[in-house]
């Protein structure tokens, strides 16, 4: 790892870990978003299978 890259990496990691800095890890994806996608897909899939085969 070249020195230039290493020093920039260290600077950024410090910023991510500094509670006072404006940088940081983004909040996680809400579980509700995943549930909504799965439920919507399940409903659409069931409707399409019914349309095809019933």
């Amino acid at each position, binding site marked *: 790892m070249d020195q230039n890259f290493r020093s*920039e990496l260290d600077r950024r990691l410090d910023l991510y870990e500094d509670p006072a800095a404006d940088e940081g*890890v983004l909040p996680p994806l809400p579980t509700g978003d995943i549930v909504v996608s799965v439920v919507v897909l399940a409903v659409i899939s069931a409707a399409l299978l019914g349309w095809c085969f019933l």
Partner: protein
Amino acid sequence: MSADFDRSAAEPGFTSDLPLLRRERIWSFWDFSAANIGLAIATWAFLQGGAVAYYVGAKEAVASIVIGYGISIIFVALAPCVPSVRYGVEQFVSLRSSFGTAGSRVIMLVLSALLAAAWAAVLAIMCGYAFANVCNALFGTDLATDGLVVKLLGLAAVVVSWIILTRGPTSIETVNRVVSPGLVVVTLIMLVLVFTQVGWSELMELEPLAADFDKHMAFMIAIELNVAGGLAWWPNVGNLARLTRSSRAAYWPNMLGLFLASVIAAVVGAFSALALGSEDPTQWMIPLGGFVLGGLALLFVGFANITSIVAQGYAALVAVRGGAGTVGRRLPWSVLAALLLVPAVVLVFFPDVTYNNYGRFVSWGAIALAPLCAVQFVDFFILRRQRLDLRAMYDNRPGSPYHFTGGFNLVAFASAAGGALIYALLLNPVDYIPAEPFRWLAASLPAMLVSGVLYWALTRVITIPRGQGGFGRTAAATESEESTTFGA
């Protein structure tokens, strides 16, 4: 940031495998949606639709495309995108928590290079077919699909793609700004022409191109083709998602682009294939639109293949350059692009073999991608509950959390291999003949389930007791993150 670092960032195709800062997250929800739709509305969606129409009729084509893409895109939008956006890191960096610091590099290098080369070959040949068909219609020539002219046209498509790639992201954006809306127009015109010439009720009655196939098995193959088609986005999409400003902005645009836009284009492709009795998209335009409109559309689709090669190639180059570390960063962008396209140059000289085996090609991708996606999903969402150790992702010293064994998490590789084996047992990737249980299970989904369960179990039995993977640090990382996250 140092002056040297600024200069390197200005190079064409430069990508930093550093965690992004807030100002570098340049995409809103709608920016990512636009990029995503541009990627999805590409000529590969027509190929996908044509391949599906080989096995099933119109109703089953719609159902299999929606269900297959829906399942795979949810996984693809979650597993690589959310870790990349949360920590602002490239996909191969986020993959270190599951496959190890060296293992993730090998995976991204091999997969990105192989898939980009294969896609480039298929699309370049499609470009050759398109121009040959226009030439046959215009000049009354009889250019064969495996003739020298088609091979040279394919080669020319690869060379032009390389030239565009060497000019970096600006030229790619310029070309895509014209081609993506153009493909939307072509897709809509095709849809209108299909319904004008065939009609809804007649379309619904049309038999699949392989009419003598066992209908139940054919429907499951169609589902499998679409699951595999969606999984093909896995190597690239995380690197795009990390440019967005929230986890939601990284997730939902995939549903508009990779899912909805792909579904629409693939359904139009399937309808066209059924209406015209050919799975080859370059055979549709002139019969549908007549010589002038159809010929122009076919020429446009021919050129659009080049932009698809460039879009796929650029994403792969970003991954390869990041994955290759210092060597990758030092190698000139044009040389790296040439190296990536060399296999495609060879494949375009075997056009019929390459182009007519689209199903097998997608299947070969899925046999690797389905298990990898499952392992990454279980690692990030179930075992680590969306929390990684950012500093550990950049620490490849022995004993560091994501170093595992010599830089490789053998548990993850064994789990992925188990899933790949299940896939091969259910659907032979060489002759594309399914085993009897495929009728009820398909292949990618059981492969994902086996890989995911194996990874979860082996991690708890082997990895965690050995103190590898930094799983014990999750609680500390959680507390630390809660004090440093910024607003959604």
